[in-house]
């Protein structure tokens, strides 16, 4: 209660006077969401309320300040035991006495998601602070984006801000060079990125190099000192490229990332996709994704693969996946869709009927169901839990 009073006081004394100034914009959204999944015959539910408050101020012609605060409360089933979703062949490998550690908690959060200053000049932009980093051309998967992992059920949802310093230099109207530095405890552990973007005819292309420490965990060993699973930091050097353009009337894109690892085996990720809008307004996307970190036989999936997937440390447990999305505006306010992910490596399939309804100018309703059809133990197995999500979002 005291925290909420503090937030309100903060709002009153900081944001209200700011919004009263010229050139300061205050906007954002409130969303209320229920997410459910069937677990062992029960339908478990997690309710989320999220208030996002955005602030944007043009301090001068060349300087912009932008920030957003997120306030999130969770209700209902706020502790999800990952072992409930895994097959006995995996759960039987858990060391005795460690079963209670495989729980993902959802705790109320209040945080500064993004806060940055942007300096814009004729030939370059400089952005300093916590900011969104979006890399790559893929829709569902982005091999070159080592900063974010998209939610496969909700790929267009915003990603958390990253603390960074970024410079975008215009080499010409077509070519751009971007350099990014995301500081960690030492220079050596900090993330560095350099990206070159250009265009040939109707094709955009980019080349990218990133160095970043990948902080994944060994979910079979517990670090009692930190009261968490043992962290296994490892330097990852990515060399990648991406394209986006048009071929035979289709929108097409590709994205490739080769990852040189400090200790583990090197791996690569690759995406190729296409989209099209039919004359009758139906829109379709297809995308194929390969990740050689993923495995070709589902019997090889282990607890580390699953936990790294659920905690968004890695993008997939399986090697090859295929995605299809079909959307159609049923009316001018209602869009219906169906998406499907097919895992070629283990023959599992998920189907997601989706709905997007514009209730009023600034109110939208989003809903989807997800049904998994793979056999137990596969990437999209029945035991993962059929479920769905209903979200109402009000923009202000």
């Amino acid at each position, binding site marked *: 209660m005291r925290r909420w009073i503090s937030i309100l006081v903060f709002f009153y004394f900081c944001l209200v006077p700011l919004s009263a100034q010229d050139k300061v914009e205050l906007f954002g959204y409130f969303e209320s969401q229920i997410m459910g999944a069937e677990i062992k015959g029960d339908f478990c539910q997690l309710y989320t309320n999220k208030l996002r408050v955005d602030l944007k101020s043009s301090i001068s012609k060349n300087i912009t300040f932008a920030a957003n605060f997120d306030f999130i409360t969770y209700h209902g089933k706020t502790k999800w035991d990952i072992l409930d979703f895994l097959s006995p062949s995996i759960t039987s490998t858990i060391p005795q006495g460690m079963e209670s550690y495989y729980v993902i908690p959802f705790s109320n959060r209040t945080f500064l998601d993004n806060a940055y200053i942007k300096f814009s000049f004729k030939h370059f932009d400089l952005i300093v602070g916590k900011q969104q980093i979006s890399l790559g051309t893929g829709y569902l998967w982005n091999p070159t984006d080592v900063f974010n992992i998209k939610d496969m059920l909700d790929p267009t949802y915003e990603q958390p801000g990253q603390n960074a310093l970024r410079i975008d230099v215009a080499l010409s*109207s077509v070519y*751009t060079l971007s350099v990014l530095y995301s500081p960690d405890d030492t220079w050596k552990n900090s993330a560095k990125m350099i990206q070159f973007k250009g265009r040939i005819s*109707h094709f955009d292309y980019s080349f990218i190099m990133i160095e970043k420490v990948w902080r994944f965990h060994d979910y079979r060993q517990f670090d009692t000192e930190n009261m968490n699973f043992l962290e296994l930091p490892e330097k990852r050097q990515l060399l990648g490229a991406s394209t986006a353009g048009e071929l035979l009337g289709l929108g097409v894109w590709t994205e490739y990332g080769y990852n040189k690892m400090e200790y583990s085996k090197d791996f690569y990720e690759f995406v190729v996709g296409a989209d099209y809008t039919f004359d009758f307004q139906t829109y379709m996307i297809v995308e194929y994704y390969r990740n050689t970190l993923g495995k070709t036989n589902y019997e090889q999936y282990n607890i580390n693969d699953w936990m790294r997937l659920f905690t968004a440390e890695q993008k997939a447990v399986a090697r090859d996946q295929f995605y299809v999305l079909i959307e159609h505006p049923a009316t001018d306010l209602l869009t219906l869709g169906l998406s499907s992910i097919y895992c070629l490596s283990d023959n599992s399939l998920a189907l997601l009927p989706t709905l997007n309804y514009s209730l009023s100018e600034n109110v939208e309703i989003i809903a989807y169901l997800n049904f998994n059809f793979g056999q137990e133990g596969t990437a999209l197995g029945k035991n993962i839990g059929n479920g769905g999500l209903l979200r109402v979002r009000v923009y202000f």
Partner: protein
Amino acid sequence: MKKIMISGIIIMLLAPALYSQELTGEDIIQKVNELFNPQTSYGKAKMTIVTTSGSKRTFIYESWSKNRGEKNLVRYLEPSRVKGQAVLMLNHADDIWMFFPRTQRVRKLATHAKKQKMQGSDFSYEDMGSGDAFINDFSPKRLEDEKMEGNNCYKLELTRKQNSDISYSRLIMWVIKESFVPVVIDYYDEDDPALWLKRLVQSNIRVIDNIPTAMKIVMYNKNDNTQTELELLEVKYNVTLDDNMFTERGLKK
């Protein structure tokens, strides 16, 4: 002498009529195209969509155009749901990029995306930013002049050229004789030239910077029984626009 004077007066009186008769479909559409595509322009517009249920959705956006419509940038101001979203169209909308501010993501769209409705309105991206489409994608034929919306008009039929991928098989256009503003445009189905899809009506014409400008534009969708009204809140022509505006960096501003 008297005879010469009378002949002169007759010629002066008949000249506009003779001139208008001499104008071919190509001449008229060329003038319409020049009017539609000034060297540079800035506009602020309010777009009101009347949905099938009768409810309204209102959007306010700013747009900038350069090189006679070859480069276009549209940025939404309202409502909050789409605030900051922007669309960049280059090469007469053959290259399109869309910017989503909450994710800071820029997506390159293929030309098929031009068929999509702009924010669910009755205007497609193709209708909004095709620049030289009237000339590049259609062959004009002048029909018999008609009166339309109270104006003396040239009537034109524009038939899609064979190599064009535009979404309409033909257009019928009524162009005001005095100003060359197309007061009404009818759009016909891509595959069925007899199927009438939409009607665009332009009104409240004002001369801004010597360019006759329709301040109110309404698109009626005959199939869905919906309509979208565009009201120009502010228009400026021959403004100075930096080329940097029409780049990915400019899109993300």
